[in-house]
């Protein structure tokens, strides 16, 4: 069997990640790798610890133990040991940069390591317009352009140009998610499916290297789900952003992901291509919660194995 892509062109490497909340072990020594340019799905039953993994990767939780390595470009593999022994959160060479995400606070994970995320319960700026939502996502870039507000207050040309460029970029994304007509409406006034896509577009406006989507298809009807798949495939086709997603909707997972990691009770029970995972008896039994043969059969029929 050939070596899978995630072993040699890794963007994210989760290594022996453990997260304890008091006595409760939410994640137990979880290790997996995500490949650059892939759509990697993390699946598992409710309470398996998927969102906790996400919160650790994006800096919202500080992991109890373990290492979260993010690679920009293809830096030498010899960088990792000095970085781990040192105290800095990142190190770089000619070919790229390595980040230890557990050492960065949440906003720097987004700002420096360029990991963007969406939320299970959509978190848009509901009182701001669709366009404003996409501009807030470009905050750090625009802050620099506005000379930390000074140039902006004076209304200098360089800032106005940067703002026009930011609006152009937002407009591009609005066209991609078919929301141009509603650009000046409050984000909270959009239908649910549009809000989901807007949240993804907002995350994409921050130019992420890794995009983490927490159940992007939750609550979508089949048509919206199809649009979402097309959007994610489009992002993958551009090759600039890798995607890590949590999902319950099997059709989305099996259709678009290149790599699936299955969690149950905070441990990894399967890891591989969608075909491999789909046929893994451990997944069918444990993840789908089947107790006896008959139930397994019924579920197999449902997922179409």
């Amino acid at each position, binding site marked *: 069997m050939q070596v899978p892509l995630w072993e040699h062109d890794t963007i994210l490497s989760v290594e022996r990640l453990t997260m304890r909340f008091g006595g409760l072990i939410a994640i137990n020594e979880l290790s997996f790798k995500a490949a650059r340019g892939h759509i990697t799905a993390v699946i598992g039953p409710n309470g398996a610890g998927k969102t906790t993994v996400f919160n650790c990767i994006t800096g*919202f939780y500080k992991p109890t133990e373990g290492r979260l390595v993010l690679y920009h470009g293809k830096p030498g593999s010899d960088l990792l040991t000095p970085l781990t022994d040192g105290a800095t959160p990142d190190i770089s060479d000619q070919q790229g940069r390595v980040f230890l995400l557990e050492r960065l606070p949440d*906003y720097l994970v987004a700002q420096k390591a360029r990991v963007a995320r969406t939320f299970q319960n959509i978190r848009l700026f509901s*009182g701001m317009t669709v366009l*404003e939502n996409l*501009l807030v996502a470009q905050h750090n870039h625009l802050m620099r352009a*506005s000379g930390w507000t000074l140039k902006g207050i004076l209304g200098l040309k360089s800032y106005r140009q940067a703002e026009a460029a930011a609006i152009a970029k937002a407009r591009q994304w609005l066209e991609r998610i078919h929301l141009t007509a509603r650009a000046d409406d409050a984000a909270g006034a959009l239908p649910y499916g549009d809000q989901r896509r807007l949240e993804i577009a907002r995350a994409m406006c921050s130019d992420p290297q890794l995009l983490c989507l927490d159940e992007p298809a939750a609550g979508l009807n089949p048509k919206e789900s199809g649009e979402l798949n097309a959007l994610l495939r489009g992002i993958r086709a551009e090759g600039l952003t890798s995607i890590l997603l949590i999902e319950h909707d099997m059709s989305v997972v099996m259709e678009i992901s290149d790599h699936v990691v299955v969690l149950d009770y905070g441990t990894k029970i399967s890891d591989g291509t969608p075909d491999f995972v789909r046929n893994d008896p451990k997944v069918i039994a444990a993840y789908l919660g089947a107790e006896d043969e008959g139930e397994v059969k019924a579920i197999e029929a449902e997922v179409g194995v």
Partner: protein
Amino acid sequence: MATMQSPAADPAMKPGLDYGAAFKDACLAGIIAFLIFGLLLGYETQQTLTNQIILVPRTMLLAGVVAIVVIGRFLINLWSAHRAQTLKTAPTKTTNPLLLKLEAQAGPAFLIAAVLFPAIVIIANGELQSSRYLVDLGILLLTYVMLGWGLNVVVGLAGLLDLGYVAFYAVGAYTYALLATTLVKLPGLEWLAPWMFWICLPVSGLLAALWGVILGFPVLRLRGDYLAIVTLAFGEIIRLVLINWVDVTNGGAGISSIPRPTFFGLPFSAADNGFAATFGITFDPMHRIIFLYYVIVALAAVTFIVTLRLRRLPIGRAWEALREDEIACRSLGINTTNTKLTAFSIGAMFGGFAGCFFAARQGFISPESFVFMESAIILAIVVLGGLGSMLGVIIATMVLIGGPEMLRNVESLRLVFGSDFDPTKYRMLILGIGMVLIMIWKPRGLISTREPTVTLGKKAQAISGDFVKEGHG
């Protein structure tokens, strides 16, 4: 059935206007009112000549109060039912389009009105001295408008509930008072005296901004009620320090004979080098009042323009995003610590400017001027006007500060309440009732809609207040 499909045809079918239920509820309110007021208002204790205390029943008063409660409750029930019905039939209820148009034109219109105000007052009065009351009132109003706009940055835009805003006002005022009274006494610096106000104005703003950062740091982790309590405490700490640090602040006695601002170096005095003599006009103490008026107009205009610009810059959008959802902000790489600190410090800076002006205008300050009530009034202006709305602050200031002043002079109230009615006694009560009514009528403030900071289309459309969050700390 036809009647089922068109309930409007049969008034009894109308779900909202149920007179029976409204009346029943009103009667219940009447019973509660009777129980509450029965002993409080129903009897009066009087001392007889033999020093005995007897109970005198006041049946009519009690009956009157209960009747007011019953009728009032009945009318409120009918009104709210009616409103619920109209809301159902017309769900897209937004702010009055006229008000929106006004908001767009608010800046220039109010600036012109503010600039022309003293001229109009003086022409109407025919002479300077008798105009003093109105121009003074104008200064008072503009000071509160400026404070309201400053607090609006913190509470309205960034969504951080600050109950101690008056602390920054105090820092600005004391900065000017202390610097101006001590610096000019230093040997070799006497020549600075006429310029003191203009030197201290930026210093006051910067020091207040610094205190904004100092307050900001410890409270950054706090949200909602906890933030409100700590900011409230901060306001009190500043006031208590001012009272107790007698060596520096002169304690509760305050600082007096603070140098007055000059006309860019020319003092407003009857002296030969004074403003009047230099320009060849007759000396009049009103010159200084009018000059002070234009200083506060300029300060308020600067506050307005800077706030308006900031709102359209990334920092302003980040403030509003912070109010909407702090976690989403962090997920987009926004440093929420710095963003909150800038909101605190810029709001505080405007408070500091206003404080410096206040000290210069009064010529005397004491901790008495910086009590919690001031913070509460400024916050009430922001909330009543509608969080985040600049025009709302102006209107709310007119109502909350101008209203009580006007009520002092309204003689027509005597016609309603009898000739022995003293409007000054009841003005705060009337104001309170007015505030309650406004908050019932417009729970999110007078202007509850939000103007987008940037649009793709040509026409900016206001965002309904239903979508805009209030922030939670």
